[in-house]
């Protein structure tokens, strides 16, 4: 029996900021969930199950917070699953929820991801050492900077490509009312003049620490027919993982990312992603990851990703807009960041992305990664239902 088609009929986000002192964790997640329900024209009683994700628990200092959040998310009496796949978790969480609908286990599922990073310190939350294992070298930037340098050496990309990405994403964020960073005075010179944090990554090329939540309502064909607004349809979704450390690992372009994208494209019938995909929301926590992932996701030949960025192809008005929302560089509630990518892709094909809408976006890719660039989660959504 073929899978049930899965539709995204509701999306809700909080305004992402450095610290939401006005709400508890429960208040934060409920805000996003209520907005998603309103978008879907549904109430709590229409929800069959809740799938929640965040990463890791040390960021708020609450172990398995889904237990405490069951009440706030209307999950009492319902099934509730908690997904954790490091930085890719927001994407994985959406895919686990989508599978519940695709498998016809449930008709309508609320999925939500959040992070309230102001409750603690993300950098040190990621830096708890364990004996005989490689420490994460003072936060994620310390881990990823050498791989960015390897990309630059390998491809001969000029030094300023990273700043172009940051400049673009921060300008895009100005059009997204939910984005965390709204720097109205941003200039390319300001990006380039920022202090070096982890060479070659400048402060201006890193993501912020945000408080925020993102929720989606996923439903089946019947649910989509009742939705008050156009749904986004899931045409393909996949997760791939590889070990953190092994001799054959290519940290610049991990095999798991390539395989994950290939699986999604196969499911969605995409043979030429560069031409057939209208918008991409990719997980770019450090600016150089845009050209790196352009190659990893098959939008550019190996060594050519930076040329697309440099030529303006990934700008809001380019022919392959990347992160029209402003991306992770402008908004990073870590556990929610992957789901925001998935949700923003869905907003594009629903035609509901507001000022950062890409005209005529029919197919969009949402992408997330995590761990030591080892966990990948992606989905491709379309304005039309999948064939069959």
């Amino acid at each position, binding site marked *: *029996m073929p899978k049930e088609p899965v539709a995204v009929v509701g999306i809700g986000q909080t305004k992402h900021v450095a610290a939401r002192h006005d709400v508890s964790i429960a208040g934060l997640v409920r805000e996003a969930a209520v907005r998603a329900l309103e978008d879907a024209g549904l109430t709590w009683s229409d929800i069959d199950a809740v799938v929640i994700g965040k990463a*890791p628990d040390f960021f708020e200092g609450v172990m*398995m*917070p889904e*237990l405490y959040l*069951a009440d706030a998310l209307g999950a009492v*009496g319902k099934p509730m699953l908690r997904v*954790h796949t490091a930085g890719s978790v927001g994407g994985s969480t959406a895919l686990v929820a989508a*599978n519940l609908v695709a498998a016809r286990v449930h008709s309508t599922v609320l999925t939500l991801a959040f992070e309230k990073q102001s409750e603690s310190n993300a950098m040190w939350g990621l830096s*708890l050492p364990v004996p005989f294992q490689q420490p994460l070298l003072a936060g994620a930037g310390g881990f990823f900077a050498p791989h960015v340098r390897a990309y630059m050496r390998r491809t001969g990309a000029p030094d300023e490509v990273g700043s172009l990405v940051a400049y673009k994403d921060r300008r895009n964020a100005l059009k997204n009312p939910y984005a965390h960073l709204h720097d109205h005075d941003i200039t390319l010179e300001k990006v380039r003049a920022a202090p070096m944090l982890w060479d070659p990554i400048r402060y201006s090329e890193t993501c912020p620490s945000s408080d925020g939540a993102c929720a989606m309502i996923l439903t089946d064909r019947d649910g989509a027919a009742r939705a008050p607004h156009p749904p986004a349809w899931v045409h393909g979704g996949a997760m791939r993982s590889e070990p953190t450390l092994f001799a054959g690992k290519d940290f610049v372009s991990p095999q798991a990312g390539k395989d994950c994208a290939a699986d999604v494209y196969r499911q969605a019938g995409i043979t030429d992603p560069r031409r057939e995909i209208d918008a991409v929301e990719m997980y770019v926590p450090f600016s150089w990851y845009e050209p790196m992932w352009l190659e990893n996701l098959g939008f550019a030949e190996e060594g050519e990703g930076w040329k697309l960025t440099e030529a303006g192809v990934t700008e809001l008005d380019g022919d392959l807009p990347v992160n029209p929302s402003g991306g992770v560089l402008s908004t990073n509630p870590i556990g929610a960041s992957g789901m925001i990518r998935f949700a923003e892709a869905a907003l594009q094909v629903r035609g509901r992305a507001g000022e950062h809408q890409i005209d005529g976006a029919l197919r969009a890719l949402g992408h997330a990664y995590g761990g030591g660039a080892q966990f990948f989660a992606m989905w491709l959504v379309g304005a039309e239902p999948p064939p069959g």
Partner: protein
Amino acid sequence: MRDVAIVAFAQTAHRRRTDELSEVDLLMPVLHEVLGATGLKANEIGFTCSGSADYLAGRAFSFTMALDGVGAHPPISESHVEMDGAWALYEAWVKIQTGEADTALVYSYGKSSPGRVRDVLTRQLDPYYLAPLWPDSVALAALQAQALIDAGATDEGALAAVAARNRTAAAGNPHAQLAGDVPAGDYLVHPLRTGDCPPIGDGAAAVVLAAGDTARALCARPAWIRGIDHRIEAHGLGVRDLTDSPSARLAAERAGAFERPVDTAELHAPFTSQEVVLRQALRLGDDVRVNPSGGALAANPVMAAGLIRLGEAAARIHRGESDRALAHATSGPCLQQNLVAVLEGESAHA
């Protein structure tokens, strides 16, 4: 729904401390054992899912190193729940239901020895109102036990009998940490004595799931999952009737547990009093063999103990000792969240 079965199960010997072993060291033997039992290699498995909790390891992303032990190259289709492995099994079962996988490897592990697990589990509580008071897992279970005694549903003697029966059964379980004649002991938190509480220990478990004919090819007598469901209740203890478990009852109903009698039940009841609640909610009569493995009172590796219930129930079906078994897992304080699966051997289905 596709027919999906547990076709292999392995667990560690559960021990109070495993200082000499990393989590990967703990896991590797059980991963090799379940894969060996099916003849499958890691890259032939359709989907892999694990359960664990960072707070036990004391570091973020603790599961990433465990994945290295699986041997995930070439890359695999994989996911993780920050929950007991029973819920990882549920996610894997859903994945197989979509048709995207025919087989799944599910594993979970927990090392309680590096910290003080009673204190660690307080961090599961509402962080604003409850957690700052540090009420530990035994104290919360004692509230539930006292509520049961006050309601006339049990007494301390009956609870001691629950402990004795589980640990007597565990004498036949080579993996058990606490087996045989274990004294009732002194009060730990009134009315619970040490004997009413689970041992603190380290351990890991793994199962392999397979669909339809693949399951039949991998296992002489697959344990078919006839139904599986899980439900959560409110977090606040003040808004729950601690003498009942409506979420366990609803999960059992949705899993089809009440359609026909079961002969065996593996209950994830770390405290004797919780077995009293679950027996009633799950309508288990005296003719049902409850916890032939000794249950969580004999070995309670946190985050694996629920998956072990599913594995133990399946193993009895594999061995022909059960035709229809109920397996249960729990999470959260005082049975807040519950999962129920109904497993059957082929002949029971025919």
